[in-house]
């Protein structure tokens, strides 16, 4: 398994690796990350705040839900399955989800990729690089408290429509998203 900074990397896992994951060997997953393609894939990359915003900007024309989260954050972990659900449910109506992780870059392989893989996240996961976390927060909204999870919803014109600084369930996420679809 590998990741790289600044570029998109897609990880493909064979059924054999998934068996290994069930068996509890993340090390084995890491060793076999380049195995043959199956229906399970996730996208994780380390990115600077500028690259994160460039990615979000590239999705203009869609409704974009940005979620700031981390694997060490309990409410974020609880919210993540709901994110994957709404990402799938509303993709056809033009929703794109971008999960921005504030995990340390040195735990991408040990924590972020296994977590995202386990949830089979159907969206890009960008892990903030080593830059100042405050700069990232301020680049989204100067009024953010600094707590995660935080969800920010942008309309099709890229205008910030809604900010919620707490974990949301599927129903709450849908209520946030659907008026803008």
């Amino acid at each position: 398994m590998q990741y790289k900074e600044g570029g998109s990397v897609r990880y493909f896992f064979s059924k054999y690796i998934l068996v290994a994951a069930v068996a509890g060997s993340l090390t084995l997953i890491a060793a076999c990350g380049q195995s043959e393609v199956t229906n399970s894939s996730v996208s994780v990359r380390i990115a600077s705040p500028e690259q994160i915003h460039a990615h979000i900007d590239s999705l203009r024309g869609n409704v974009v839900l940005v979620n700031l989260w981390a694997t060490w954050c309990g409410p974020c972990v609880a919210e993540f399955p709901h994110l994957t659900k709404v990402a799938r449910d509303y993709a056809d109506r033009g929703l794109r989800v971008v999960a921005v992780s504030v995990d340390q870059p040195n735990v991408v392989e040990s924590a972020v990729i296994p977590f995202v893989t386990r949830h089979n996240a159907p969206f890009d996961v960008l892990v903030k690089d080593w830059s100042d976390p405050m700069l990232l927060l301020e680049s989204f909204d100067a009024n953010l408290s600094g707590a995660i999870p935080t969800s920010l919803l942008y309309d099709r014109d890229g205008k910030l429509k809604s900010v919620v600084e707490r974990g949301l369930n599927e129903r709450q996420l849908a209520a946030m998203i659907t008026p803008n679809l």
Partner: protein
Amino acid sequence: MNSGTTTAILATFSLLCTVASADIATVGVGATAPDFTLPSIGQSGDVTLSEFADSNLTVVMWIATRCPVSNDYNERMEALADDYRDKGVAFVGVNANKTESTEECVQHAQIHGFSFAVVKDDGNRVADQYGARVTPEVFVLDSKRVVKYHGRIDDSREISRVKAHDLRAALDALLAGDDPPRSEARAFGCSIKRVDQ
């Protein structure tokens, strides 16, 4: 660690944590911070903030026992308290997380060798008064409890990558009679686990 264990840990995290409180007004720089009396986690009874009026400065730090971000700062908190003690700066740690018991706080303080007072803010009443949102988050008060600096300790959980020592810079400036180079620097960390409203 196998996936089952990982899942169990993550599930436990989920149970332990609640949402961040988004609608809390923070005591701003220049405002007078509320006095408080809270029980010490040790054997020393209550701690009253105004009793630190003889100190040149008082640093009120919201801390946690389980937050990975706050825990990354344990050594730095103690080093700061130690470095500035002889300069008349008092440090008070406040734990307002409903998920962390006093007993847990005692053990945590012992393990990490905290020499500063740690108090328990059950019901997060004082956290609400201050508008503290995350751990770690600090307020630097002068002898009249006027907030002179608010926010983070520095700019990286990873100590080797710290470039901006915001709290240290604020203390140095204030002790020299100057304004801090930066009076606010957004704190980043775990949400304070508040009681349900």
